[in-house]
Structure formats: C-alpha cells, structure tokens
C-alpha cells in the first residue's frame, strides 16, 4: 500500500467538497483524478498534500498515517506537489530555484557558512537538462515563458527527489505543443525514476493518453475508479462527465 485515503471528507462550512473518498494509489502508477468543475479534484489533492486538513477520514502514506501532518512533513516523507497556478520563485534564477529543491531535500538548509552555489551542481544541471531548461539557467523565474514556468516548477519538485509527485493541472494554460512536451516529460520521469504520479487534469486527451488508472469525482464523491478502459465504459461517468462522447 503506497498511498491510501480512507473515507476522507472535507467540509467548508456547509459545503462538503470531498465526500467519503476511499482510494488507493499504487506505487509506480500514473494516476489521474478527473471530474467536472467543482467536483472536488483540487480539494482532494490538497488533502493528500497537506494544503488542507481533512474534516474526517484518514490519509495513509507508506503505512504511516499522515492525515494531520503539515505540508512540509509530508514533503519530507516523499510527497511533492505542483500548483494549478504556477508556483515558482520570480526573482530567483532558474538554477537557484532548482537548487532550492535539492537543498531542502538533502537537508543542508541549516548550513550557515558554506556557499549555497557550491552544492549539487551536477544534480541541478542534470535536472535542467532533463526538463530542457539548461540554456535558461541564469534567467530569472519571472522572465521565462508560461510553458517554461510550468517546466521550471516540475524541475523544482524533481529536486526534492519525490516518491509521489502530485501535479495539479500540469498542462493548464499550455499550447497543444507545450502540452505534448510536458506530458512526455512526465511519462519519462515516471518510467526512468520510478516516480508515482498523481495528477488532476481537465484535458481528456491528456488523461486517457497517459494515465494508467483514473478516478472520477463528481460533487465530491468518487463515482468511478479503474483503468482508462473501465472508466470509459462506465455509464455513470459518461452520464455525468463525458457526456456520452468518450
């Protein structure tokens, strides 16, 4: 059991954004959470990554209950996330941004006297090459294109060498070409690094093109969970989400 949520619920006042969702994410899978707007995808995501705390239910990661752990502790256990609205460091260079992920993960952030730039040169360069940002290493985060910012965020998260990478709408705002590049990158990382990837996405071609397993949320409730074929065949999913066109 890699990641498991047991009857997890999140209420915001009277609104039940996530309702009794029990789900298991298998190690090494690319697992998509889909659903129409307001289905509770992002909230579910936030419950897994520690952005929100669950009203009830449990989140279990590698056999350890993490329901009440703060976000930074979950990250230290191996869960890293990206945000729907790209979250990078605007005034740090691309190189420094990726370095920060490595400094955090390798626990050297309490070193007060060595120069930060001397650390992990090779690792940073390798990640930058992998995501295709090596030629922009010295550019400031806010000076690169939107697609590159998304890639930079991915590079920052890779610096933490996560076991579970949670990507909230990783292709949001990207052109079709950028989307293709980003998805092939994600697939590559999953295969090469053995990363487990949990992602939310609204673009169905992306989801069915890459996910090994898909869970469908509707009004906070899990209505389907299975392989792309199973989900595609589900009548309920077709009714509420795919409009019968899948």
């Amino acid at each position, binding site marked *: 059991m890699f990641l498991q949520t047991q009857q997890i619920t999140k209420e915001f006042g009277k609104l039940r954004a996530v309702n009794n969702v029990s789900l298991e994410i298998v190690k090494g899978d690319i697992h998509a959470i889909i659903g129409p707007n307001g289905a509770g995808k992002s909230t579910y995501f936030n419950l897994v990554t520690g952005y929100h705390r669950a009203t009830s239910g449990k989140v279990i990661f590698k056999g350890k209950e993490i329901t009440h752990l703060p976000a930074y502790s979950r990250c230290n256990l191996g869960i890293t996330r990206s945000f729907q609205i790209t*979250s990078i*460091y605007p005034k740090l260079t691309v190189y420094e941004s990726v370095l920060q*992920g490595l400094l955090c993960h390798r626990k050297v*952030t*309490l*070193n*007060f*006297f060595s120069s930060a730039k001397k650390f992990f040169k090779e690792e940073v360069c390798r990640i930058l090459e992998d995501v295709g940002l090596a030629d922009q290493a010295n550019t400031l985060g806010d000076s690169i294109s939107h697609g590159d910012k998304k890639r930079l965020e991915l590079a920052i998260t890779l610096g*933490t060498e996560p076991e579970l990478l949670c990507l909230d709408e990783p292709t949001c705002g990207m052109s079709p070409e950028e989307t293709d590049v980003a998805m092939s990158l994600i697939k590559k990382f999953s295969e090469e690094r053995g990363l487990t990837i949990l992602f939310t996405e609204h673009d169905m071609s992306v989801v069915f093109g890459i996910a090994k397993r898909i869970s469908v949320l509707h009004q906070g409730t899990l209505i389907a969970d299975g392989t792309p074929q199973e989900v595609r065949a589900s009548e309920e999913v077709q009714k509420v989400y795919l409009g019968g066109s899948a």
Partner: protein
Amino acid sequence: MLTNQTEKKDSIVKRGWWLGLLFILFLIAPSILSEFYLSILCEALVMSLLALSFNLLFGYMGQLSFGQAAFYGLSGYTVAMLVTKVHFNFWLSLVAGVLMAGVIGLVVGYFCVRLRGIYFAVLTLAFGQLLFVIIYKWHNFTGGDDGIQGVFPPDFLKSPTAYYYFILLVFTASAYVLWRIIQSPFGQTLKSMRENSERTEFLGINIARYQLIAFVIAAGFAGLAGAIWVPFYRSVAPFYLMWIKSGEPVMAAILGGPPIFLGPVLGMFIMTFFHAWVLGFTIYWPVVMGALILVIIFFLPGGILGFAHEKLKERKEKLNLTKGQP
C-alpha cells in the same frame, strides 16, 4: 575551464578592489577626521550593524521588523547594568548583552513568526514598545527616563580612536558573518521564503522555524550593535528601544536598497552624516530626512544601490547585445 577560473579571479579582483580601498580609508579615518566626525563615524558603523541585522529579515527574508531597536537597547541596558551595578567583566558583559538580545529575540520571535506582512510588522512594533515601556517605567531597576550613565570600557579602549578601531573590527567581522549567512544554503532558503513561502513550505521547509532562527540571529546582531555602542557613548537611555529608533534601520534600508547587502550600510551612513551636518543649520532634521526619503522612493525605487545595480545590469546586457551583433 582555465578561462572560467581566470575570469572568476578577475571578477573577484575587480569587485574586491573598492572594498579594499574602502577598508584602507576606514583604517586611516582617525588621522583624517576630527574627533567630532570620528564619533559620527562610530555611530554610523554601529547603526549600520543594526541596519544589516534588520535587513537579514527585511531584504532577505521579506518580513519587516519594526522592533529591531528593542534588541539593540535591551543589550545596551544589559551591558550598562552589568558594568555599572555589579562591575562585571567588560567582555563578558558584551557577551551577556548579545545573549540577552538573542533570548528575548527567541521569545518575541516565537510569537511573531506565526504572522506575515503587516501583521508581523505590527507585532514586532508592539513587542518593541512593550519592552521600551518596561525599561522606561521600571525606574528602580533601570533608572527609568534617566537611563544609566558611567558605562566605561577598559582603559585601553577609552580613547575615541582605540574604540573606533574596536567598533570597526566588530562591524567588519559581523558584516562578514552576515554575508556568509546570506550566501549559505540557509540564506538561500530565506530568499526562497521571501519569494514564495508556499512553494518553499511544499519543498519540506518549516517556514516558522526558519523565520525564528533568522529572527534570533538578527536580534543577536542588533544586540551586538547595542552592546558596543553603550560603552562608547558611556550611557544608555530608554529611547534606544523606542519605535523611532527601530524606524532608522527601516529608512536606511529603503534609502540604500534592501536587495543589496551593503545598501542599508550606505543608507545609514547617509542618514547619520547628513543628520550631523544638517543639525548645524536647522533643528528640523526630520523634515529634511522626510524629503530625502520621498525623493528616493519616487526617483530611485529600489534604493540608491538597488537603482545603481539595476542600471549597471542594463548597461551590461546592452553591451553583451552589441557584442553579440555581427
């Protein structure tokens, strides 16, 4: 590779020459300046240390502490009381002053780091004023508004020139340590928290813990500034802890440029010397200072060094562009 190393060496030499020149000027300052201006220079150096400590939080961590003078004054009081009341060893009194600032910084910081932005600023201001009022009102123990007089350094430091060199040494060593901290992985983490604390938290950093560590370091250096100033001035008074005093490093950082390490130092030098000079003409110093700050904010956003740095960068980019063209 060899070219890279040579280039690196060149840039260090180029960058280092003016710092070396500046240091030589500081070394020969006592033989150039009158005693009055030497004491102003001492004040500028001590206040610059306070400004550097403040800027660790403001320029690098992105939080405005409006109570930095409280640690400066508290440490000054600790030294003054230990030296005058119990005739404690001078050097150990300095250490005790810094420790006091650090410990109180830990307590104040524990509450402040839970907040961000304006709330952080207001809470530091409130704690600063609270400490000021305690010192001001506790007449039996602290001397209240009379302050404490007769805080003398050891005999060999009694001449202004000797004490100036002592201050210069402490300032240089402290500035070096702060510089190293800012360049370190810890400093890099502070900068990343300033840029995007949410992103940094989701990389595994306990933001409050790191802010608290930075807060204590800043309080310690502010304390060091207070500890070395009081024996030079021979006295301490409650206004050292007051919010107006806390405002000085804020203004110095804005004046000089918070993103540049020596920005607050330049700002504090301008303020201190300008203050001494303007007082010769008018007692309405705050009006002049206010006008200066307005000019800087409107015409040099990013402070003097921040503005100069931007312009230099633009020039360099333009030059690179021209070189790149056939």
